[in-house]
C-alpha cells in the first residue's frame, strides 16, 4: 500500500472556479463529463423505475398491476430512456469526455464550446422526451414501427420522437469532436499505435455516431411529417412501405448497439492490463478488431428483419455478415483472457466488473449468433430470448463496463477512493442480480413466451418470479454505488495520482487533475501498457 503521503493539489479543476455558473458555462471537458454523469444517472434511474414497474406487474400471470395499454407505455418508455438517454451517451460522453484529452496528452477537446453545446442539446432532447412521457407516454416500443407509430397510435409519439431527434445532434457533435480531437490534438510522440485502446474504441464509436445518427434523425423527421401532415411516406394505405422504415431504423439502431458496447470494451481494455500488470495481449489485433466491429456494424441491420418480408437472399447475406461480427468480438475476448494469463492479477472492484463483463458479453454474443441464424431466429423472434440476449449485451456488457469504468477512474476524477469492500460486495450483487433477472428469460423465450405482453401463460410463472426477484437484487446493486459514490465524493480517502499504478498519461498528473490536465505538455516515448518500462518510483508509490 501507499506509504508516501500524497495530498490533493490545492488548485484543481474542481475548485478552481466555484458556483453554479462555473458549471453551467464551463468549457472544461472534465466538468462537461461530470455534467453528463449527473444527467445520465438521472435518466438511468427513471428508466430503471419503469423496468421495476414492469417486473412487478409480471409477478402474476395476469399482470395484476397494469393493463395492456399502460404496460405498452412502460416498456416503450423504458426502452427509449435507456437506449437514447443512458446507453448511447453513457461511456463516451462521461468517461470519454473526461479521459480522451487526458489520455492523448491534450489540454482539452478540439472544440470545447461545441462540447458544452452538445450537453445542452442532449438535455433539451432528454427533457422534451421526458415531457412526452409525463404527459401521457408513448406506446410504440422504442422502435417506433410504422404504420402503428404514424397512423394508429394516439400517444405522444411526435414529441418523444422530437426529443430523440434533438438529442441525436448532441451525439453527432460529440462524435465529431472526438474524431477531430483524436486526429489533431495528440501530444508529441503519441503516435496512432501508441494510443491506449480506450482511444481507439472511442474513435470507432465516434465514427458510428457521426455516420449512423443522421439516418435516425431523418427517419424520425419523416415519421413526424407523416404524423403531423397525414401524408404517406411509410403508411401502406397511402402507398408507402413500412419495411423501408425498418431498414432505415435498423441502419441506425444496429450500429447503435456498437455505440453502446465499443466504449464498454474501451474501458475493459484499460482495466484488464492494469490489474494484470501486463501489456494488452495483441494490441494491434484489438485495435483492428474495434475498427472492424464499427465497419461491419453498418452491414448487418437486416438480421432484425428476418420475419419482416425481406428477400431470402438478402436475409442470407445479412445472416452471414452477422456471423462475421463474431470474429472481431472473439478476438477481443481471447486477447483480454490472454492478457490475464500468467499476469499478476489483483481483484479490485474494476477488475471484478471487467471479468463479469467478459463472461456476460460472451453469453450475449453467443446468443447473438443463435439469432443471426435464420432458422432459430424465426423460432424465437419477438420472444423473451431476444430480450435476454440484448440485455446480456447492454446491461451485462455496456452497464458493467460503465460501472467498472466509473470505479476505475473515480480516484482520478475526484481524487478520492471509494469504499473497496462495499464496492466489491455491490459488484457481486450486480452480477448475481443480473443473471437471476435475465437468464430465466432465455428459457422463457425459448419456451415461447412473447415479449411486450402484459400477461402470460401460467406455466411461465416460476421463471417470471425468479426474474422479478433478480431485478430487485439488481436494483440494490445499482443503488449501493450511487450511495457510496456520493459518500466518497466528500469523505473518501485521498487517492494520490496513480492508485492503480497504471501506465496511461492520465495517471501521470495529479488527482483531481489541474484545469489544463498537465503542468506541461507531456512527450510520449513509450507504447501503451508498458508496465516493464514504468519508473521505479511509481512501483514504490
Amino acid at each position, binding site marked *: 500500500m501507499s506509504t508516501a503521503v500524497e495530498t490533493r493539489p490545492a488548485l484543481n479543476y474542481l475548485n478552481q472556479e466555484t458556483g453554479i455558473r462555473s458549471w453551467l458555462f464551463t468549457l472544461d471537458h472534465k466538468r462537461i463529463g461530470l455534467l453528463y454523469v449527473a444527467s445520465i444517472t438521472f435518466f438511468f434511474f427513471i428508466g430503471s423505475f419503469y423496468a421495476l414497474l414492469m417486473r412487478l406487474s409480471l409477478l402474476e400471470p395476469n399482470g395484476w398491476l397494469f393493463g395492456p395499454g399502460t404496460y405498452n407505455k412502460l416498456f416503450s418508455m423504458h426502452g427509449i430512456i435507456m437506449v437514447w438517454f443512458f446507453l448511447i451517451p453513457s461511456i463516451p460522453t462521461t468517461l470519454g469526455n473526461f479521459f480522451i484529452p487526458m489520455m492523448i496528452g*491534450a*489540454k*482539452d*477537446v*478540439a*472544440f*470545447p464550446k*461545441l462540447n458544452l453545446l452538445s450537453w445542452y442539446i442532449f438535455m433539451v432532447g432528454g427533457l422534451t422526451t421526458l415531457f412526452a412521457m409525463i404527459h401521457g407516454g408513448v406506446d410504440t416500443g422504442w422502435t417506433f414501427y410504422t404504420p402503428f407509430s404514424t397512423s394508429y397510435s394516439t400517444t405522444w409519439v411526435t414529441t418523444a420522437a422530437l426529443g430523440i431527434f434533438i438529442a441525436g445532434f448532441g451525439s*453527432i457533435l460529440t*462524435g*465529431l*469532436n472526438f*474524431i*477531430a480531437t483524436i*486526429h*489533431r*490534438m495528440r501530444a508529441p510522440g503519441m503516435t496512432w499505435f501508441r494510443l491506449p485502446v480506450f482511444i481507439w474504441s472511442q474513435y470507432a464509436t465516434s465514427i458510428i455516431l*457521426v*455516420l*449512423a*445518427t*443522421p*439516418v435516425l*434523425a*431523418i*427517419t424520425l*423527421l*419523416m415519421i413526424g*411529417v407523416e404524423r403531423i*401532415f*397525414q*401524408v*404517406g*411516406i411509410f403508411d401502406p394505405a*397511402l*402507398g*408507402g*412501405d413500412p419495411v*423501408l422504415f425498418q431498414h*432505415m431504423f435498423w441502419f441506425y439502431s444496429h450500429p447503435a448497439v456498437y455505440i453502446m458496447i465499443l466504449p464498454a470494451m474501451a474501458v475493459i481494455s484499460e482495466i484488464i492490463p492494469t490489474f494484470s500488470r501486463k501489456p494488452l495481449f495483441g494490441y494491434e489485433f484489438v485495435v483492428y478488431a474495434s475498427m472492424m466491429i464499427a465497419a461491419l456494424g453498418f452491414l448487418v441491420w437486416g438480421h432484425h428483419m428476418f420475419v419482416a418480408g425481406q428477400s431470402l437472399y438478402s436475409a442470407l447475406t445479412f445472416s452471414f455478415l452477422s456471423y462475421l461480427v463474431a470474429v472481431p468480438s472473439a478476438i477481443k475476448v481471447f486477447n483480454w483472457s490472454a492478457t490475464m494469463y500468467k499476469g499478476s492479477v489483483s481483484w479490485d472492484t474494476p477488475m471484478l466488473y471487467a471479468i463479469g463483463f467478459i463472461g456476460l458479453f460472451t453469453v450475449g454474443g453467443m446468443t447473438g449468433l443463435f439469432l443471426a441464424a435464420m432458422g432459430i431466429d424465426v423460432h424465437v423472434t419477438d420472444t423473451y430470448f431476444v430480450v435476454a440476449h440484448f440485455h446480456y449485451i447492454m446491461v451485462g456488457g455496456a452497464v458493467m463496463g460503465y460501472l467498472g469504468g466509473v470505479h476505475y477512474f473515480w480516484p482520478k476524477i475526484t481524487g478520492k477512493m471509494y469504499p473497496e469492500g462495499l464496492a466489491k460486495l455491490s459488484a457481486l450483487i450486480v452480477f448475481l442480480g443480473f443473471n437471476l433477472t435475465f437468464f430465466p428469460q432465455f428459457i422463457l423465450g425459448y419456451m415461447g413466451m412473447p415479449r411486450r405482453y402484459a400477461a402470460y401463460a401460467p406455466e411461465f410463472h416460476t421463471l417470471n418470479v425468479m426474474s422479478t426477484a433478480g431485478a430487485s437484487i439488481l436494483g440494490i446493486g445499482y443503488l449501493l454505488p450511487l450511495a457510496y459514490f456520493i459518500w466518497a465524493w466528500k469523505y473518501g480517502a485521498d487517492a494520490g495520482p496513480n492508485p492503480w499504478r497504471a501506465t496511461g498519461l492520465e495517471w501521470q498528473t495529479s488527482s483531481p487533475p489541474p484545469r*489544463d490536465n498537465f503542468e506541461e*505538455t507531456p512527450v510520449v516515448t513509450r507504447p501503451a501498457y508498458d508496465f516493464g518500462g514504468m519508473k521505479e518510483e511509481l512501483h514504490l508509490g
Partner: protein
Amino acid sequence: MANPIALLLREQYSTPVQQRETSKLGMWIFIMTEIMLFGGLFLAFSVYRMSFPQAFVKGSADMSIVLGSINTAVLICSSFTMALAVYSAETGNRRMLTVFLIATMILGLVFLGIKFTEYYQHYLQHEAPAVWFDHTGPDSGHLEMFFVLYFLMTGLHAVHMLVGEGILTAMVIRNHRGSFSADYYTPVEISGLYWHFVDIIWVFLFAIFYVEGLHLHKL
C-alpha cells in the same frame, strides 16, 4: 504574445496550423454527417422511384424546368463568388472579402426567392400535399408521395441555405470588425466548405426532381 495571430490561438491548441487543420477536419466530418442525413431521403426517393416509376416521372414533368435551371445556375454562380471570397480572405483583401460574401448571400437569396415562387405555383396547381392536393387518377396517391418527397427534400435543402445565409452574415460582421487577415481566415474557409456542400446537394436534387421527366415536358 505580442503577435496578433497568437492571440487568436485558442488555449487548447499549440500552433495556429493545428487550430486551422482541426477546424477544417471538423467541417469535413460535419459534411459526412450531412451526406448521411440527406442520404436517408435520397434512399427513400430511390425506393419509391423504383416502385412507382410512372407517377414519379409524371410528377417530375410538372416541375418548372426553366426556374429549376435558373436556380441551378444561380447556385453555381454563388459557389464561384464564395470561392472568390475565400481567395480574397487568403490574400488579405478585406474589402473584396465583404463584397464577395455579400454577393454570395444575394445569390443565395435569389435562389430562395425563386424556390418559394415555385412552391407557390405548386400550391396554386393543387400540388401541395396535406395543404391542398387534389389530383385524381390511378397514380394520384403516388403522385402525392412524389410531392411529399419534393417538399421534404428541397425544403430541408432550403433550411440549409438559410443556415448558410446566417453563417455568411456572421462572417461579414466579423470581417467588418477586422477579425480576418491573410494569416487567419479559417472561419471563412470552412463556411465556404459548407456553402459548396449545400450547392452540391442541390445539383443532385435538380437531377432527380427536374430532369427525370424532361421528355414529357411541354416547354
